[in-house]
């Protein structure tokens, strides 16, 4: 029962989260359409990642979103700095090739980071294990040197 309940809870929270995002998007669409347009265009990779990443915790989506948002944030801030916020201005800013490159490139970097990080961690863990093994073997050699073959016989018994 517990896992089912937990699943329900997760599903409920996910549904709530999706709903809150949609509600925020609708609110944003009504209140600040240029910001909405900038975010909608800039965060397209993140939205795709959230849609396709079905893994628990959606790590890939989080990686992509983090860097993707870092790429969108300067343009968003620039949009807010200029007082006349219009859909045209926002569209003009967003669809500049450089801006798109930065926003989507940052999302790509996030994806690359998602791909690169596990092998790096695996190497670190392997190296650490090797070092521990050699340390233990050295200790064992010292014990045999002190206690002789009787130690091995006793351990084997």
């Amino acid at each position, binding site marked *: 029962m517990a896992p089912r309940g937990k699943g329900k809870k997760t599903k409920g929270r996910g549904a709530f989260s999706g709903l809150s995002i949609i509600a925020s998007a609708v609110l944003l669409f009504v209140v600040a359409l240029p910001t909405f347009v900038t975010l909608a265009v800039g965060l397209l990779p993140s939205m795709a990642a959230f849609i396709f990443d079905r893994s628990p915790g959606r790590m*890939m989506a989080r*990686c992509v979103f983090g860097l993707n948002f870092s790429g969108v944030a300067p343009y968003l801030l620039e949009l807010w700095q200029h007082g006349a916020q219009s859909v045209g201005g926002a569209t003009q800013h967003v669809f500049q090739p450089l801006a798109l490159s930065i926003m989507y490139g940052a999302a790509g970097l996030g994806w690359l980071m998602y791909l690169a990080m596990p092998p790096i961690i*695996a190497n*670190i863990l392997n190296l650490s294990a090797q070092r521990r093994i050699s340390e233990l073997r050295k200790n*064992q050699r010292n014990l045999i*040197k*002190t206690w002789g073959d009787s130690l091995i016989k*006793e351990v084997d018994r």
Partner: protein
Amino acid sequence: MAEQAEDQVQDASSDAGQEPEMDRPGGGAPAQEPAAAFTEPAEDIGTGGKSLEIGNFRVFTDLRLPEFDMGHCKAYAADSLSRSDGRVFALVTDPVLPTRYDLLRFLAGVHIGGQIDLLDHDVAYWPPFGRKTMVLFYEKPKGGRVIIASGKNRSIDEQDIASVVVEPLMNVLQALSEKGLTHRSIRATNLFFADAEGGAVILGDCASGPPGFDQPLVYETAARMASEPAGRGVGTLADDLYALGMTLAELGIGRRPLAKMSDQEIMDIKLSKGSFQAVASQEKLPLVLIEPVRGLLSDNADERWGFSELHAWLDGRRTKPQQGNTEKRAARSQNISGKDYYTVRSLAQGVSKNWVNALAPLRDGSVEIWLRRGLGDNDRAKALSDAMRQLQWGGSDKRAAEDVLIARSIIILDPKGPIRFKGFSAMIDGLGNMLSYDVQHGRGPQRFSDVVAREIPSFWFGRQEGFNPDIHKLQQVYKNLRYYVQQKSAGYGYERCLYSMVRNQHCLSPMIEKEYVVDIGQLLPALEKFAENAADESWPVDRHIAAFIASRLEDDVEGQLMAMQNPSDEVEYSRAIISMLAIVQWRHGPDNLQNLSHWVARLMEPAVKVFHSKARRERIETEIPKLAKRGNLVELYNLINDEQERRKDQSEFVEAVAEYSEAESEVFDLESSGSARLEMAETVGQQAAAFASTMIALLTVSALFLMHMF
């Protein structure tokens, strides 16, 4: 089985009849005195050129003194190195017969009127035997032997027998009985004149062999004569008085009573007529001796003359008349193997001599009926019927149960007689000496072991009437025998029984047997000598030595014996052996035992293994040769038995084993967790990437805000 039993009986009887060969140890059979003992025609009497020093004496090994041979022992000329009178001779005992410890201790250096003076005794190498043996040093009697070669007897006037013979012998018996000892070698051929005039006699040796061993059969009481010579037992004062009676008879007659009869005939006539009637009917006793001989030869020990009656007779007073034969005679006979028996004692002897054929009349109840109707002895009949009933519960080993029935029946018929089991026949107080004789004369310990394992002695004790402190004392001694016999490991078995029962039994270990080790203090010097050429693989303690130490040492070595039960555990086995030897050295010395120490050191390898630490082992292995050179077993033992060091070594070893095992399992875990680690790396990597991404986003936003503000 029946044929085997018969063969065994026949073998036993033929062994008993062996002639002594006294030029080698183990001539062993009782001497046929007087003629055989000192009329050896082919004997070379040397000139005394060869001599050896034993203690304070010089013994001439080629200068025999046949006139002082005593029983089975030969006499040699000797000089005292500390005394000038020179009236000493050496009596060389047979090394395969145990001497009498209690008598040697009591008589050595003590003068008792009527007893030959035992000056000293010592264990020494005796060249003709090629081994060590016990040598007794006696003062030469001034008057020579009372009965010499046949036809040349120096007769004692029958009127003088009281003062010349009885008084001195009574003095000896009184002195011995005060100490709870018995002589058991009182016979006419063992008498010497104390002076040249023949005014008094003295008794010869009584300590050179098992009690009663050299006594002619006629000198043994009806109870003890059925026993084999080695198993006749220490006996009591009553047995010595009986022998005194027969001695008087022999002196009175001028030759040994019933000498023309065979042993079997003597037994038969004594059992059927009673001892006195048997002698009186065949020999002509001097009138003056009839009364004491009759009194002393009474077959009932309670009615036999004691000191008071003898004193009365010496004083010329008359004493109460004695019955000739108090044994109840049946109205009809009981037949065993074609021979008729009328008394219970003779029937007991008949059963023992016809072991296999006696079973049928016992089983079919004819003996029981004979006891009830022929003798009117319902008590014995009931005891026999109880024994029969126990046969039916005897279990699977029917033959053994039948043997037990026969042995018990004999005891029921003759409760004062010897324990008889197949060919074995020994008094309860002679079991130890009988075992010693059997072991050293090729018969082996099996007969004794069978007797003890089947609890025949316990049954014998159960059949004794009234309280007798001597029997109670014996009962205490025999309490442990069954346990010893049942234990198969070193330190127990028949060997333990032997050394426990026979105080002067020398150690029979093949390593040191020729050294004649009687006292525990002689053990290590003998082993030291053997160690010079000992094989590397052999152990210095075998079954005999272990049992000898367990019996003779004051300290308890049961712990060591327990450890020796498992020879495959070399560590404990070697430690137990070294421990036992070390205790003996600590108690009895000597301080320096270099050869034995080197021998022990070679065998210490398993004991050194008890230490796990290589450093400790190396230190001990370096120390061992140094200590071995000093010849101290105690130090060697302490080296491997430092309990504190051992405990420390053990606890450290246990920790080391645990540490090694933990390391091993951790290495195994690390080596076998590659895929798990990859999975973990995947998860952790993704989490790290997500975290980093989020951090970058936060930092970027924060930086942009800050830039905008400032």
